[in-house]
């Protein structure tokens, strides 16, 4: 099963904290956005491996944009 990790709000990608292929568990942070001068952690809603990272550090993302795909 594939699950998309989406940006919870508009902002820029400050840090990607996992790499492609890495195993992650539910609730683990995938990326940290910077928005409204705040660090916004974006956790995975499922456990699995990171199939793809859809964004790079520094990218602007809108609310709902896909950040990563977890398999």
């Amino acid at each position, binding site marked *: 099963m594939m699950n998309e990790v989406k940006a*919870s*709000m*508009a902002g820029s990608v400050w840090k990607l904290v996992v790499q492609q292929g890495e195993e992650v568990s539910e609730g683990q942070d995938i990326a940290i956005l910077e*928005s*409204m*001068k*705040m*660090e*916004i*952690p974006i956790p995975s809603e499922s456990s699995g491996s990171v199939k793809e990272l859809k964004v790079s550090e520094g990218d602007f993302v*809108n*609310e709902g944009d896909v950040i990563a795909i977890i398999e």
Partner: protein
Amino acid sequence: MAKNQTLEEKRKHISSGGAEKYHAKNAEKGKMFVRERLQLLFDDDMSIEDAFFANNQDDKLPADGVVTGIGKINGEQVCVMANDSTVKAGSWGARTVEKIIRIQETAMKLQLPMLYLVDSAGARITDQVDMFPNRRGAGRIFHNQIKLSGRVPQVCLLFGPSAAGGAYIPAFCDIVVMVDGNASMYLGSPRMAEKVIGEKVSLEEMGGAKMHCSVSGCGDVLAKDEQEAISFARKYMSYFPANYRKAPAQKESIDPVAFEKSIEELIPENQNAPFDMYQLIDRIIDEGSFCEIKKKFAPELITGLSRIDGRVVGIIANQPRAKGGVLFPDSADKSAKFIQLCDAFNIPLLFLVDIPGFMIGTKVERAGIIRHGAKMLSAMSEATVPKISVIVRKAYGAGLYAMAGPAFEPDACIALPTAQIAVMGPEAAVNAVYANKIAELPEEERPAFIKEKHEEYKENIDIYRLASELVIDDIIQPDRLREELAIRYEAYQNKDVTFTERKHGVYPV
């Protein structure tokens, strides 16, 4: 109904509901029979049931598909109406509607909470002239709900569909508990949507419990099964008085759960780094007393009932762990309703503040963030129950106002030493004031200049300086927070204030 049946036989027939096949169908879906639900809901059996014999001349319509009466929850009387989905799918006929209206009128007269156990396909189209348009037709149910609102608690447990007009029963309740997989709310069914507007969609996607509890906000609590929904209702009722003239019951104080990390250790020094506000809440409330409302909806703001030193307190807390704790249209909306709920039933409020402000950008402006924010401010401002605002960390811009800042007559605005109150954060402020100056400077001089201005700004908004100017009422040690709140809520318990005299405000809804 057979003429030669004895009273006992007639009773037995009616109390067994509809045909066996409908019971079996319900059981397959994990649905209990309406009378089993009521048995679980009440301390004992239902004490009074009226209009049990409704429509008894028709064998196939026991009680006309709804049970209405009075029973006890946690030792307190409540009124209830409960659809029986084994009788014509719980649909409403003329007597069904009359029964619901009568139990609402009883709740009004006796000033008792009103619970709605909904599992109904909606109106019986064949009976429409008798139950739809008239003075005591279905519209009167909603009219009564609106009249009861704020006088007595109104709770909706949604076990099955709540369709078309029926979907307004949950809409007018204080709280809606939805059973995952079975409960749904919609104006037009997927079949109708396909016919009328050409949309292909599943019921779960369009009006399912998960959707309503996380996206639309029409549902407040997602229960995994009926037992969980009912036990939530029993817990929820323990925080409320029977009506607006009474105060919620005080219980014996229970110490909070013991944690290794203190509140001080929990709060990061960097204002921009997230922390989990639930952990702070757990450290100040009585163990096991948190009853969260709308957990899955707008998680950047936490709302829930709790007890502090045995006293019921409604908590509104920013959650820096979700969306930075920034306020959005949905979170503003969520808090407005929660504040009204608490204020209506004399439940004191606690605001735990760590907020960078309201969200900005095209998306939220188009969604009307200004009017949704205004709705939150209105509800908060108008609440006359004891109100305490605790500035945990940052309180920037209109965020300070929305979270019961000093201008909104909280009984106290107290700060932890980590508090920072300002129009905006240091980074944004230095940028706003000195943007041109920074651009003019040679690049190598910029960092030093910015740092100097940051420091100046921080001194300017230093929390001791604000305390010296009487902006806040006190600065306290984080680990004394619970004790401080307990003392203050005790002192404020007889607060008696009328917000203002008028018919009603013109609310920014």
